[in-house]
């Protein structure tokens, strides 16, 4: 490969890298980086990973918090003071960028168009593996999910 072609290729690699970064984090730097409210971690991670607040719009978080006694088939009720504290933080850190602006079906992160697109190479059989079980179980494959890191380089799909 001559020098010019190599340069051309390199510049494309940079463009691709920047573009893929922008696809999720670029227009909302808070998504992976926001410091998790201790109360959010304490209460919500008893049952599931601490879903980054930027993955749902404020409207979805508001509905979720307004209906915790009926939270996707379980009673996740909390006292009013805790609900208020979570609501303030989630509303301040909710997703506002283009892909997250619209509330997904049932306010489920896993029904968002961006989520479905990003997982389109994962076959139905993989989702059904006992170690995965549910699309809600981020940490089954995203090994750093509990740190709020969903980078695909840390993905390990269990057998």
């Amino acid at each position, binding site marked *: 490969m001559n020098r010019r072609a190599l340069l051309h290729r390199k510049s494309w690699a940079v463009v691709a890298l920047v573009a893929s970064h922008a696809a999720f984090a670029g227009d909302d730097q808070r998504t992976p980086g926001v410091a998790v409210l201790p109360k959010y971690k304490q209460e919500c991670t008893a049952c*599931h990973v601490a879903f980054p607040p930027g993955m749902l719009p404020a409207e979805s978080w508001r509905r979720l918090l307004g209906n915790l*006694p009926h939270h996707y088939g*379980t*009673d996740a009720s909390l006292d009013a003071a805790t609900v208020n504290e979570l609501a303030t933080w989630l509303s301040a850190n909710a997703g506002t960028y283009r892909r997250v602006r619209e509330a997904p079906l049932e306010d489920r992160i896993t029904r968002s168009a961006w989520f479905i697109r990003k997982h389109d190479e994962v076959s139905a059989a993989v989702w059904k593996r006992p170690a995965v079980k549910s699309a809600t179980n981020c940490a089954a494959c995203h090994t750093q999910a509990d740190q709020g890191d969903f980078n695909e380089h840390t993905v390990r799909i269990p057998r």
Partner: protein
Amino acid sequence: MTHSSLIRHVGAVLIAGAIPIGVHAATPADLQAAYGALSGTTTIAPDRGQQLFTIRHGREWSCASCHGAVPTQAGKHASTGKPIAALAPAFNPERFVDAAKTEKWFRRNCNDVIGRECSAAEKADVIAWLRTLK
């Protein structure tokens, strides 16, 4: 005030009053005793607690669905798959040492498993059974 909210109110007051407030203020024995006193029952029965814990109550889940039939080791959340640390206090010193946390989880999980809140007697029975696991 409805019957159930009265029970909840009295329970919160009694448990909060009977047990020093703090993060690790109570012991499983304290909580069992407080629920026992609240229920007015003279007999606390670990085997009834085991049965309540293990069987299904006409719904999808039993307590054991997430905690395991003998919760001396980690269980797994039935819908999210997230690990749940052992529930038996001999195997997990963080269990049943906080009255508010204990009340919160009994409220939620009895609603999920039985479709109503558990009575003080039922809570005392369950804690009594869990304390027999060594």
